[in-house]
């Protein structure tokens, strides 16, 4: 390798990604707390979108209620901030009405899996084309730190003062069981890996669910004795996870207690809007009664 080529490569790598292309700059500053991972996730998502070749007009971003659901307000797409838990239902309406739009849903663990749990499983079942990012920080942040369906058993929260007695959901297993055709997990800590995962998720035709482990140092961290945001990220997102491909090669005892990262499930199945178009052909074949 010549020195010139090496320098060129280095320069190419060092060209900073221009997030301004996608950010509604006049809507900043965002509402997220210091140490929150949502901004990191958003940057991975924007880089992934940039590589998808989609124009800004082709993308519709929909969210529910919660911290992660504020994401659409900051990005220059067709954007919709809806009701708590119902993002997927609004998104289904948009998608079926205009299948040419790429739908990206940003939602949280409470929004998607508690109040919106019914919509979550049925969206996966239909396999309607949309990319669903579940920002999973195991807490209701916007309302001040109550336990959510992904809060680990035993954890403290403002509504589990003696430790959470409820078992938690595995978002990815739930999505897979419900019929999602693309299921992956990433973290805010592994930004490059998350970007690669999101590129695949956005490219996928069908319901793609990506659970993103993300830390809430203010409301989860403080109540559960984490010293800092970075310590939380290292402990939960880095040490608490392992790439699925790597896990396969390790003895079970080394994987135990860790959540798998990467693409966990990917299958082909007819997509809902395409099925609907076939139904229309059938109806037209029967004539206009």
């Amino acid at each position: 390798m010549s020195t010139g080529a090496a320098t060129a490569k280095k320069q190419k790598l060092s060209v900073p990604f221009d997030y301004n292309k996608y950010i509604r700059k006049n809507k900043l500053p965002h509402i997220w707390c210091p140490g929150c991972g949502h901004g990191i996730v958003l940057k991975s998502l924007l880089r992934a979108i940039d590589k998808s070749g989609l124009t800004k007009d082709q993308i519709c971003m929909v969210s529910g209620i919660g911290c992660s659901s504020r994401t659409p307000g900051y990005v220059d797409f067709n954007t919709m901030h809806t009701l708590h838990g119902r993002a997927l239902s609004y998104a289904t309406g948009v998608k079926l009405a205009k299948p040419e739009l790429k739908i990206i849903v940003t939602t949280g663990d409470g929004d998607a899996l508690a109040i919106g749990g019914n919509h979550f499983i049925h969206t996966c079942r239909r396999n309607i084309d949309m990319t669903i990012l579940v920002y999973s920080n195991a807490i209701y942040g916007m309302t001040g730190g109550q336990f959510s369906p992904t809060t680990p058993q035993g954890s403290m929260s403002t509504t589990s003062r003696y430790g959470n007695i409820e078992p938690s959901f595995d978002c990815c297993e739930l999505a897979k069981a419900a019929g999602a055709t693309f299921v992956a997990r990433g973290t805010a800590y592994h930004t490059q890996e998350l970007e690669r995962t999101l590129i695949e998720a956005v490219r996928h035709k069908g319901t793609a669910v990506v659970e993103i482990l993300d830390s809430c140092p203010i409301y989860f961290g403080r109540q559960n004795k984490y010293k800092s945001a970075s310590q939380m990220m290292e402990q939960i997102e880095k040490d608490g996870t392992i790439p699925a491909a790597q896990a396969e090669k390790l003895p079970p005892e080394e994987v135990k207690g860790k959540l798998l990262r990467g693409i966990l499930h990917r299958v082909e199945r007819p997509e809902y809007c395409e099925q609907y178009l076939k139904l229309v052909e059938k109806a037209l074949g029967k004539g206009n009664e």
Partner: protein
Amino acid sequence: MAARKAKKLMQGNESCFEGAIYAGCRFYAGYPITPSTEIAEGLSRRLPQIGGKFIQMEDEIASIAAVVGASLAGLKSMTATSGPGFSLKQEGLGYACMAEVPCVIVNVMRGGPSTGYPTGPSQSDVMQAKWGTHGDHPVVALTPAYVQEIFSETVRAFNIAEKYRTPVIILYDEIVGHMREPIIIPEPGELEVIDREKPTCPPEDYLPYDRRLEVPPLAAFGEGYRFHVTGLNHKDDGFPTNDSKTIEEGVKRLIRKIDNNRESIWKNDGYYLDDAEVVVFAYGSTARSARRSVRMAREKGIKAGLFRPLTIWPFPDKALKEAVKKARGVIVPEMNLGQIVLEVERNCPGMAVTGIHRVDGEPINPKQILDAIEKYR
């Protein structure tokens, strides 16, 4: 052409979905519930035939949400439900009010509270239609009483929704929804069909909630106007705000856009009102009963008249006040324990207002109303 014009015996619910199609409805999302299900069943067959979209959602909440999503993507959209389902849709209805998204919600009323009497007629959602969702919000609700009228009122509901960027509720009872009458489907162009105004300005100048306008134009997603929609109080550009002046002005504009246009939204029907000494105020199937009572009363020489609102919200206060000018009393029959009668009382101060109420799943028959009218002999 002659064949198209032909009379057809049609059910109320069938007339509703045919009216929706005539009005340009191309998206339906719903969840099965008696006694409105025929609307979903009919549209699952009819919409694909004209390239429209039909989806049965997992619940009532998802249905209203999908309808609002589809409307923002540019399609005229509707859902249909009944009492319990209408309760579930209330938060979504409020979102449509706040985000100013045109859509139509049909509520074929049934007995309640709770699961109540699913196949029995009722008119007990009149106040729920007005006040069911939280916060101050504009409501338009139409109350057709005849099968032919359900067709034209459904068209009118879409027109109002599109013109004023607001959800419109069609309220009728099980009797009207399930009964069959001969109707004539109007030719295309025979009834006015209004489409929402779209922006023509450059995208960077677009203000989807421009307070300077009564009803700002509404772009569709994916057409170059990358705007933002939220249920939070928002600025003219659609983005959330904490500014108290902006919040107040925004909410007031929502109310004002309907309030200022009441004259064009109101629609009433009158029967022997000119010299009426006793006025029956009735809507839906009860108004048909009342019409018979008035006719019977006139045969007996009693000066009775019928005031029948087709727009029940906003309440037709002006026309009612006019109609009762010569009256000594007002009779309000309704299949509930007293809802719209309160509004009539409020608007007819000093006048004797008598409610006739029934919640046994049976209609209020003409004899019952006639008995009340006869007290004015």
